[in-house]
């Protein structure tokens, strides 16, 4: 059982308040502004005092626990001596409440998170029991420990490293207390989702909600450039741990995170520097800026996700950045090629798309979405090279494959027997009917697609026939019946 729940039981009087606290902090962490976390993991009386101080004050913190949950909390929250049956009951109840709650409401969001936590606790408990039944000596160290959305697994820094000395020389710092993790003598955990590294002793007081949870709730990286609200609005407190900030004392100096626009204490902002997604999208600015630990972990998780609709967010960028223009054209061609490869059984047997693109399939799926990694590689030129390589291998297949060649086009304006493809230079596609022509040929026809004209004519003709036929059909059928 994770002990932040133990702490709930230790002082029964404060339980309700604590729950309120943790709920509101969880909620509020999921709000677009906040990445602050309440004292979810703080132990005992300390958290009581702390929670009083860090209670919602500023506008950006106010997110009270939904009324219905206060009533239900005794059925949802359980104590450390809770049995598997209790947990099952709590899960069932929580699930019912989720179904009853309104869609997209704060209530539902809290409940869903709680449900996930409950399920993990249940799994923990079951695994622990299994271990015990196997051999009572083994200390349950291998089980995943779920704390504020993190899924901590034991961390072995030397594991699998060829040079143990080198590995030992690399220092690891605890993301919670910022002290060195002396891996030889201290056990540590790492979050399998976000990479949060923590001492075993610190694990129960972790406050930062897992970046993976943040990412899945936020869905897109923050799109405003450094949306600062100011120290006053933050109540001169660290946006994550609530430490009072002071400009005179360097130990508790406020440090601005350029990603979230919030001020953090030096424990939560290590002056890591990284590019900022919003600055890339708006300014094509890749210069590194200082950001908080939470932001760094979040950006890392966003790195490979194709989420950015660059052309929608900043269409002019494609005019100014030539590299981007080249990438766009290449991707457009790859999209056309993928249609061929998707319809070709030889290519699917060869797994050509998988083999060439791997996990970056989005590059050939549409030319809309970019991941942060794509954008940085556009700037460095690596993406153009990569896409050119893919283009070459796709092209090689399509031009040598019987099936793909069969589905090429023949320009119907000039009827030249030589086949053309949508991704060929000097060819143009009709947006309406998808036909492909030589650009010169279509220009000669004043850019009017002959197939579209045919389709239109046929439609008119069909309408005409339909109107005159309606009476005829009835008589026709009668005759047919008579026959």
């Amino acid at each position, binding site marked *: 059982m994770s002990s932040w729940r133990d702490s709930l039981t230790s002082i029964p009087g404060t339980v309700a308040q604590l729950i309120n606290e943790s709920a509101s902090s969880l909620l509020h962490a999921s709000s677009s502004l906040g990445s602050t976390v309440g004292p979810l993991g703080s132990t005992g009386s300390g958290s009581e005092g702390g929670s009083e101080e860090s209670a919602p004050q500023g506008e950006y913190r106010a997110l009270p626990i939904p009324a219905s949950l206060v009533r239900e909390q005794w059925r949802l929250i359980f104590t450390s001596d809770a049995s598997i049956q209790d947990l099952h009951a709590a899960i069932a109840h929580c699930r019912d409440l989720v179904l009853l709650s309104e869609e997209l409401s704060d209530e539902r969001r809290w409940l869903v998170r709680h449900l996930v936590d409950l399920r993990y606790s249940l799994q923990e408990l079951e695994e622990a029991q299994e271990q015990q039944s196997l051999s009572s000596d083994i200390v349950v160290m291998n089980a995943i420990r779920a704390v504020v959305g993190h899924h901590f697994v034991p961390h072995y820094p030397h594991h699998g490293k060829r040079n143990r000395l080198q590995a030992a020389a690399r220092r690891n710092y605890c993301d919670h207390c910022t002290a060195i993790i002396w891996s030889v003598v201290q056990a540590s955990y790492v979050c399998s989702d976000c990479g949060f590294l923590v001492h075993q002793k610190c694990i129960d007081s972790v406050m930062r909600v897992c970046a993976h949870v943040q990412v899945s709730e936020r869905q897109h990286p923050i799109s405003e450039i450094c949306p600062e609200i100011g120290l006053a609005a933050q109540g001169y407190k660290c946006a994550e741990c609530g430490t009072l900030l002071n400009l005179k004392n360097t130990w508790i100096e406020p440090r601005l995170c350029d990603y979230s626009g919030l001020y953090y204490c030096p424990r939560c902002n290590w002056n890591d520097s990284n590019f900022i997604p919003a600055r890339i999208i708006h300014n094509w600015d890749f210069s590194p800026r200082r950001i908080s630990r939470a932001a760094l972990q979040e950006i890392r998780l966003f790195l490979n996700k194709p989420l950015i609709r660059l052309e929608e967010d900043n269409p002019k960028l494609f005019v100014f950045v030539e590299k981007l223009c080249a990438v766009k054209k290449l991707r457009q061609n790859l999209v056309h090629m993928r249609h061929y490869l*998707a319809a070709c059984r030889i290519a699917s047997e060869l797994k050509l798309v998988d083999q060439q693109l791997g996990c970056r399939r989005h590059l050939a799926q549409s030319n809309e979405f970019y991941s942060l990694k794509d954008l940085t590689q556009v700037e460095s030129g690596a993406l153009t090279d990569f896409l050119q390589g893919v283009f070459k291998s796709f092209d090689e297949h399509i031009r040598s494959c019987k099936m793909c060649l069969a*589905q090429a086009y023949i320009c*119907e304006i000039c009827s030249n027997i030589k086949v053309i493809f949508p991704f060929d230079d000097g060819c143009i596609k009709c947006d309406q009917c998808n036909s492909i022509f*030589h650009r010169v040929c279509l220009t000669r026809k004043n850019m009017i697609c002959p197939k579209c004209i045919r389709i239109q004519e*046929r439609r008119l003709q069909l309408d005409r*026939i339909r109107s005159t036929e309606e009476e005829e059909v009835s008589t*026709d*059928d009668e005759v047919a019946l008579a026959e």
Partner: protein
Amino acid sequence: MSGRKKSLLKVIILGDSSVGKTSLMNQYVNKRFSNQYKATIGADFCTKEVVVNDRVVTMQIWDTAGQERFQSLGVAFYRGADCCVLVYDVTAPNSFKNLDSWRDEFLIQASPRDPEHFPFVVLGNKVDLDNRQVSTRRAQQWCQSKNDIPYYETSAKEGFNVEMAFQVIAKNALELEAEAEVINDFPDQITLGSQNNRPGNPDNCQC
């Protein structure tokens, strides 16, 4: 010129989506039928050896996607076709009405030497179903108006008339080829002639 005798017949099956093009082909080639509908993506072909007029020929049957969303690819395989099979569903009047556009589109894309006499075969499929909507007479009328296209009613499910229809298809395709052979004795003349006389294509672009 004796080596020109082609032993490969290219047959294209066209028609609206879900009229049973793939099923007809499967019934003919593999003698199999499945009730499950699976849209064809792009185009695919099967081959079958048949004996026509005491000659063994390989029939290459191209099955196409009827659904518009799968028609994002080209139809270069229409070129060099020896016969075109137009399929409609006797329980779906719209699929019958669309035969006209399928035929026109085929003639334009395939641009055969003699579009007026290009061998088509029309198949009214799914005659095993009860709710028939297009009468035999109506279909025959249409076929007559288009230069007497042979018309057959089939059921891919029961295998009814399928074998027979494809025999006719193979025979007609072979006849076209025989004619082409005669014409091909003067290859130069023909290429020029066909380029200039193509209907609906007045200008003669060489690009």
